[in-house]
């Protein structure tokens, strides 16, 4: 307490802040965002909860699958995504809003006044974390469904067309939903709003529209981020979906592309708001 000024000052450095010192480069901001993410206990629990939710739901639903249901082995493994996607959404939303809801934004953006590098670093961190979470969820779901697949549920057969993609789809769709949550969070700056809005976009609107099939509603369904869940379907299911829809047929990767477009647009809007609007 008595040493008021740094020891380094004692070396006679009368010049404060030699101009040669460099500021917030992108790798530095990325390192900072990584520290921010890993230093919050909530985030660890969130990743764990997401993995557990995926595995538990896959196991639970697997118990009720009968051989003649028309469900595939990949469906059994990835079915937990319906609940786990909320975990990805919350993850992204919290990364983006934690600064704004706690007042940390003032510290963050005085250190990085150009602001955009912070959002980009958050995109990178969220992508990596979502990839890891998705991979863990996939492994956990696979392990959890070993007993049910050994019983009545269909076995996981990589020879079934599209199975490998459907398994990978759990990870990819998870990343997409997490980034959507990040974009909505950065745009709205409130976690509750981002989570509710995100859930409507990735799940509820689709459910509502499904009750009213028609050309207009099917087109709308195909253009919502919820189309990203098609990444989790094998070829046969996708073909069946495309055969019954009265809207555009999205094919194998179309659903993922729709989700990606949403992510890019929402993140761009968030970036615009971040740069243009005052930070409180």
């Amino acid at each position, binding site marked *: 307490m008595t040493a008021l*000024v*740094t020891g380094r000052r004692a070396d006679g450095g009368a010049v404060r802040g030699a101009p040669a010192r460099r500021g917030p480069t992108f790798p*530095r901001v990325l390192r900072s965002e990584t520290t921010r993410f890993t230093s919050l206990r909530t985030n660890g629990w969130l990743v764990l909860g997401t993995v557990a939710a995926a595995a538990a739901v896959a196991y639970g639903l697997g118990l009720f699958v009968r051989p003649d249901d028309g469900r595939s082995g990949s469906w059994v493994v990835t079915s937990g995504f319906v609940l786990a996607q909320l975990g990805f959404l919350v993850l992204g939303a919290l990364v983006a809003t934690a600064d704004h809801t706690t007042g940390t934004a003032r510290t963050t953006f005085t*250190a*990085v006044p150009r602001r955009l590098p912070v959002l980009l670093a958050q995109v990178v961190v969220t992508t990596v974390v979502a990839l890891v979470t998705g991979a863990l969820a996939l492994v956990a779901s696979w392990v959890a469904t070993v007993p049910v697949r050994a019983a009545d549920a269909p076995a996981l057969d990589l020879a079934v067309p599209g199975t490998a993609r459907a398994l990978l789809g759990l990870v990819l769709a998870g990343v997409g939903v997490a980034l959507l949550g990040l974009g909505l969070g950065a745009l709205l700056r409130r976690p509750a709003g981002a989570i509710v809005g995100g859930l409507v976009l990735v799940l509820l609107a689709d459910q509502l529209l499904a009750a009213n099939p028609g050309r207009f509603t099917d087109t709308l369904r195909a253009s919502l981020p919820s189309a990203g869940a098609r990444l989790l379907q094998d070829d046969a299911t996708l073909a069946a979906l495309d055969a019954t829809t009265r809207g555009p047929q999205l094919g194998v990767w179309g659903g993922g592309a729709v989700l990606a477009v949403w992510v890019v647009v929402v993140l761009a809007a968030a970036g615009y708001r971040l740069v243009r609007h005052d930070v409180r």
Partner: protein
Amino acid sequence: MIEVEALTKRYGSTTAVDGLTFTARPGTVTGFLGPNGAGKSTTMRVVVGLERATSGTSRVDGRRYADLPAPLHAVGVMLDARSAHPGRTAYKHLLSLAQTHGIGRARVREVLGQTGLEAVARRRAGTFSLGMGQRLGIAGALLGDPRTLVLDEPVNGLDPDGVLWVRRLVRELAAEGRTVLLSSHLMHELALCADRVVVIGRGRLLADASVQEVVDRSERAGTVRVRTTDPERLARELLAAGAEVTPQEGGALHVRGATVDDVGTAAQRCGAAVLELAAEQVSLEDAYLQLTADAVEYRAAGASGGAR
């Protein structure tokens, strides 16, 4: 060096800052004084680039804040005691901030030591008292060893020890040639540690003067209490000097329009023995009202010229 010129900030129809101009110079502690809601925090947020000015400019070391190559090394900022995530430890909070500028862990530990937070460095910021949060904010401001410091109400919530520590800290930082801009709504606080004060009210500049000038001015606005062996003679002497005198019980007088020095010398002149002499505490409200009334005169006399 902070230069604010004709700065105006509006939120919808409310004007928070209205044509404010002032300069905070290296080697001095510039106090930023005004009642709550006067626009101090808004001005500071504009200075550090968190908010955009409606019109006017603000420069740090001759540049816009956003154009500073290394903001943390140029300006240390503490705007709010609650500016760390409650779930993050003090150490990790500072580390993440340091990493944006490639500042090492050693420096993080150094500022933790400097602000007396080593013992609680591994505790979550959410468990901190207001005073500890304030220290953490100051630690963040010192992190980049900056040439300029912007501190919003730094003594808020500190215990008497902490208040003394902040006063000494800002004096030392200024003595090293740094620019310190420090806001407060307490006149006596600034009187103890600032060289110059910039007084604002309702977003407008009311005074930009040395502390002594402002203190003298407000002392003249306040009352001096004097008890003497010969109240009548002293009262006559003071009235002749143009002061306003109100007799009190027990031979005491309340004098307005004269400083303690004035009353003391007057007593000596007329040979009345002084038993007690003190300036009654001038409330900020009094000083502030006085400044509002004298605003035009002050602006004319002020070093940086008028706002309008």
